[in-house]
């Protein structure tokens, strides 16, 4: 075990997979200069052919990754900030997500599209998106959104080995956090969630960086005598519904914490899953703690309170634990 950061975990996963398999290569804007610290020394180690700086043309190079994947390569595309996936919607949604299906299983698209969730630091609306829910609504794309270095590494390695296209959403609020990461072969299967903390009174399901806020809230709740279980689905597509339902059947209460906007968020999907499948076990309404449906402003004073916080989660937990209160409109 070694203690490394989330970013180092990404770097190690890429490094190990590129060493293991010659068909893996990486491309994106400014990867050679190691802009976010996930390609340190890569040009020296793997050569400029396999570590490619692209023009600023997301639809072009993300689509080209799809084309390269179809002929047997395993590209890792670093799209840097997830807001920059929008210019590539065409290739992601019309080609990458659908080619296997539309051609009756003839096409293979083993590629990984990495991008970070760059919110919370006054980067204004055009850079602060958390767009995974939009892609959850598009069949054909697997989605990982890990919350710690260990999961990041294990899931990214699985993503590279997957024969399906995988979108990796990397929460920048996790970047510098250190975590024990197993050395050597550490691969976490896609679609398998994790119980980050055991508890008996309430289940808090966190998404991406929301997991870490949920864990802090769970600690605060403990002081109030409330025992919270924290579940991290880790993979949003496919979603480990069974793990979530098992927990809710035990606790009878659920809160979903998701930094995405509320409407059609991952939290919404998880809430609906719980209500549809564990209604009998529920002792209170399922609540969502998300970012409200407004854009993210530049001014830090009005940006910061928009995201899920420990206080908002604790409040929601009290509500759920309390009398038969319902969520305010």
């Amino acid at each position, binding site marked *: 075990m070694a203690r490394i950061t989330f970013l180092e975990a990404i770097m190690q996963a890429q490094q190990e997979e590129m060493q293991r398999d010659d068909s893996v290569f990486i491309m994106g804007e400014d990867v050679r200069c190691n802009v976010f610290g996930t390609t340190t020394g890569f040009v020296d180690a793997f050569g400029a052919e396999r570590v490619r700086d692209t023009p600023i043309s997301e639809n072009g190079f993300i689509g080209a990754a799809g084309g390269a994947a179809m002929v047997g390569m395993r590209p890792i595309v670093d799209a840097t900030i997830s807001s920059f996936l929008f210019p590539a919607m065409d290739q992601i949604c019309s080609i990458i997500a659908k080619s296997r299906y539309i051609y009756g299983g003839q096409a293979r698209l083993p590629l990984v599209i990495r991008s970070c969730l760059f919110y919370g630091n006054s*980067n204004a609306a055009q850079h602060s998106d958390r767009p995974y829910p939009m892609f959850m609504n598009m069949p054909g794309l697997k989605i990982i959104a890990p919350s710690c270095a260990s999961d990041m590494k294990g899931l990214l390695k699985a993503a590279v080995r997957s024969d399906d296209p995988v979108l990796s959403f990397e929460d920048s609020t996790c970047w510098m956090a250190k975590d024990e990461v197993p050395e050597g072969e550490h691969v976490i299967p896609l679609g398998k969630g994790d119980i980050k903390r055991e508890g008996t009174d309430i289940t808090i399901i966190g998404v991406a960086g929301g997991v870490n806020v949920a864990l802090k809230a769970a600690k605060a709740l403990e002081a109030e005598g409330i025992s919270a279980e924290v579940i991290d689905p880790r993979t949003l597509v496919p979603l480990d519904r069974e793990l979530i339902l098992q927990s809710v059947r035990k606790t009878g209460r659920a809160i979903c914490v998701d930094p995405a906007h509320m409407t059609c968020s991952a939290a919404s999907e998880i809430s609906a899953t719980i209500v549809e499948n564990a209604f009998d076990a529920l002792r209170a309404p399922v609540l969502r703690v998300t970012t409200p*449906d407004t854009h993210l402003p*530049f*001014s830090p004073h*009005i*940006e910061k*309170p928009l995201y899920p916080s420990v206080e908002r989660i604790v*409040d929601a937990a009290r509500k759920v634990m309390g009398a038969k209160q319902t969520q*305010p409109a």
Partner: protein
Amino acid sequence: MTTTGENDPRLEKYRRMQRIRQFEAKAEKIHADGEIPGALHTYAGMEASGVGACMALRDDDYMVGTHRSHGHPIAKGAKLRPLMAELLGKKTGVCSGKGGSMHLSDFSMGSLGETSIVGSGGPVAAGAALGAKLQGLDRVALCFFGDGASSEGAIHEGMNLAAVWSLPAIFVCENNRFGMSTPTSDAVAGENVADRAHGYGIPGVIVDGQDVDAVEAAVREAVDRARGGKGPTLIETKTYRYGDHAVNMGRELTPRGPEHDEWVKRDPITIYRQRLIEAGVAEDDLDAIDKAVADDVADALQFARDSAYPVFEEAFDHVFVDRLPIPAEVQAHA
């Protein structure tokens, strides 16, 4: 607010370049001190490109810019107070604190946005030119974009649309030799971005981006063409940015070659100042402009500092015409 030079277009050109330079020098300093949140992409070194282009526009002409957004509005004549207040995230900012450094966009000066999604301004300019044409107005729309942005599909689509419909648009590629860490030659096929004009059947012009008069002349010709119903022009200003991609990042992204010093020697403001002096303008008059600009910048900063931050409810303004309802559980902890 000074009026020095406003009646002499030559002095006004000088004044606007100085305003950009001094505004940003102040911004860079207080950003280093932590007074400005977010990233700061400075325009220093590129002043002649923006000012030359905007001097060829009328106040009611349209303009679309980029994440490197400080220079364009000042070049078009915007007041400094709301710009500085925006950098500080204040309610009195030109975008009410919503946009920040990448979005200094003053719609009262004809701006239609400084957009931080690279290349996304191209279609906006084409559309504004279409609107002006349909409305029977003789306005033009000018789109600033970077060498890096020239690789985006949206830029191509905007130019093609403008060309095929003969729209009154001017596309100004500010080629500052890099997109973040990537040299233009690694990202842009062909020698010059302007050469692509040939493919659209429109004029493509290359101009010395450090010479404000040369830029102005090139854009003026393009504006005349556009107003005359002859369609768009693509102009490439060969220029250079002095700062790193964004300043105060603690790490330099842009690799600097030996040509760096050559570019810095060809400073657009120094070149123009020298030209004015040779043409008989008194140095004292130029110094007076420098001083007046410094006062304006200090005034803008004081204004920004004295201004209030937006209140939380304002985060829910401007998504739609009407303020969004604020969820009670969010409001409770704001």
